[in-house]
């Protein structure tokens, strides 16, 4: 009797399993989108600290421009860009687009990241400044340097609902210092973008920017884009169809000439390559 009493209970493996520690992670949502762009506009994804991304954004001409132009492939608009993670939450980027020969620079700051035990959304602040160098000064001397500038202030709010479905809403304010007579300097738009993962490495994305207060006689159209993300290791390929040939916010949100639903569709792609500079040291043990 005493012996039985004295026997410490031997634990089964399942009993032991109940004793192990649970990790104290907050369960941050990672990879809400594959790339730093949904299609045309930015996503809530940021480059990690010390990561450098080289991004080529390319749009061809209109598919309905006919066989003579090889369905738009003869025309090309390209932006070459570099983006760098100063910290996990702060990114800086520069780029140069062939459309309007525009230089742009931006700051992207993640205010909060969606997590299981914390905030239900990721919120990122995006600010950019763009300088168009068309027309040249000798062609139109009325253009001052300040006339060429435009600012974009944007809030990116995203939720990864599941592994396969993410949605982003992005209110945006664009200020252009000088505009055509029929246009207005300030424009507010609201964008919606989403991703559905078809396989582990293939996703279907869509994006739409709705201008809340376009000038009444504005010839410009809202921006529509639909495309696929294809991921291979350090690369992300984004192939898409859109009515925007432009690659900076000023142009594709507020100065979009083509009508998607009238068939003015452009084929385009983004290719990114990420390089890790420096980085965490490996502990040796």
């Amino acid at each position, binding site marked *: 009797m005493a012996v039985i009493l004295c026997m410490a209970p*031997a634990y089964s*493996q399942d009993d032991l399993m109940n004793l*192990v520690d649970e*990790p104290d992670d907050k369960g941050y949502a*990672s990879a809400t989108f594959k790339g730093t762009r949904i299609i045309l506009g930015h996503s809530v994804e940021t480059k990690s600290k010390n990561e450098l991304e080289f991004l080529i954004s390319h749009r061809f001409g209109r598919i309905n421009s006919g066989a003579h132009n090889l369905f738009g492939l003869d025309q090309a608009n390209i932006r070459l860009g570099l983006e760098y993670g100063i910290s996990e939450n702060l990114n800086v980027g520069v780029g140069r687009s062939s459309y309007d020969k525009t230089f742009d620079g931006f700051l992207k700051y993640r205010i909060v990241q969606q997590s299981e035990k914390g905030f239900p959304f990721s919120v990122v602040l995006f600010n950019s400044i763009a300088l168009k160098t068309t027309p040249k000064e000798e062609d139109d001397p009325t253009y001052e340097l300040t006339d060429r500038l435009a600012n974009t202030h944007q809030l990116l709010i995203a939720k990864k609902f599941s592994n396969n479905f993410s949605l982003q809403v992005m209110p945006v304010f664009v200020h252009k210092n000088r505009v055509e007579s029929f246009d207005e300097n300030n424009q507010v738009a609201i964008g919606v973008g989403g991703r559905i993962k078809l396989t582990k490495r293939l996703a279907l994305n869509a994006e739409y920017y709705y201008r809340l207060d376009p000038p009444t006689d504005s010839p410009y159209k809202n921006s529509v884009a639909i495309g696929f993300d294809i991921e291979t290791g350090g690369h992300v390929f984004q192939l898409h169809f859109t009515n925007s040939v432009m690659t900076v916010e000023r142009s594709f949100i507020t100065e979009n000439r083509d009508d998607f639903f009238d068939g003015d569709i452009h084929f385009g792609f983004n290719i990114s390559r990420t390089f890790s500079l420096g980085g*965490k040291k490996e502990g040796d043990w």
Partner: protein
Amino acid sequence: MRLVIVILFLCLFFEVQAQKYKSVEGKVRFFSEATLENIAADNAKASSVFDESNGNIVFSVPIKSFEFRKSLMQEHFNENYMESDQYPKAIFKGTVTGFENKAGTQKVSAQGDMTIHGVTKPVNVDGTMELKDGQIYLKSVFKVRLEDYNVKIPQVLWQNIAEEVEVTMNFIYQPI
């Protein structure tokens, strides 16, 4: 009556000498050696419990806690290979043989079931355990074949990722 009290005290004494140990430090590293690049990831959030009385031992390794030098690799590891939202933990449940309650390093082996990526396989793993200052130091190095656990590597990345990765475990236990 006095005898019963003595026995109860003895019981308490033996209970204090409880044969269960829990990890106060649990590190797991995996290392993949391949043609194009070597990949290593460290995880310091693993947990383990060992019952000396019957040799039962369990390990729980949270997959998302593996830290890579390149954060993009970490993302791919979780999203594409381990699918860690779906399979958040790697688990081992088994029995240690060869451990005796005495000082010094001892060769041990553990037999049991390893669950990685939702796939459970019977395995036999060798290692060492050392009892020192009331703590147990466990070390083990073993290989894991990715194919066994249904972890698929796309053909274009065959040169980047080894088919077999080396796992190193370093645990320190204290009695509970």
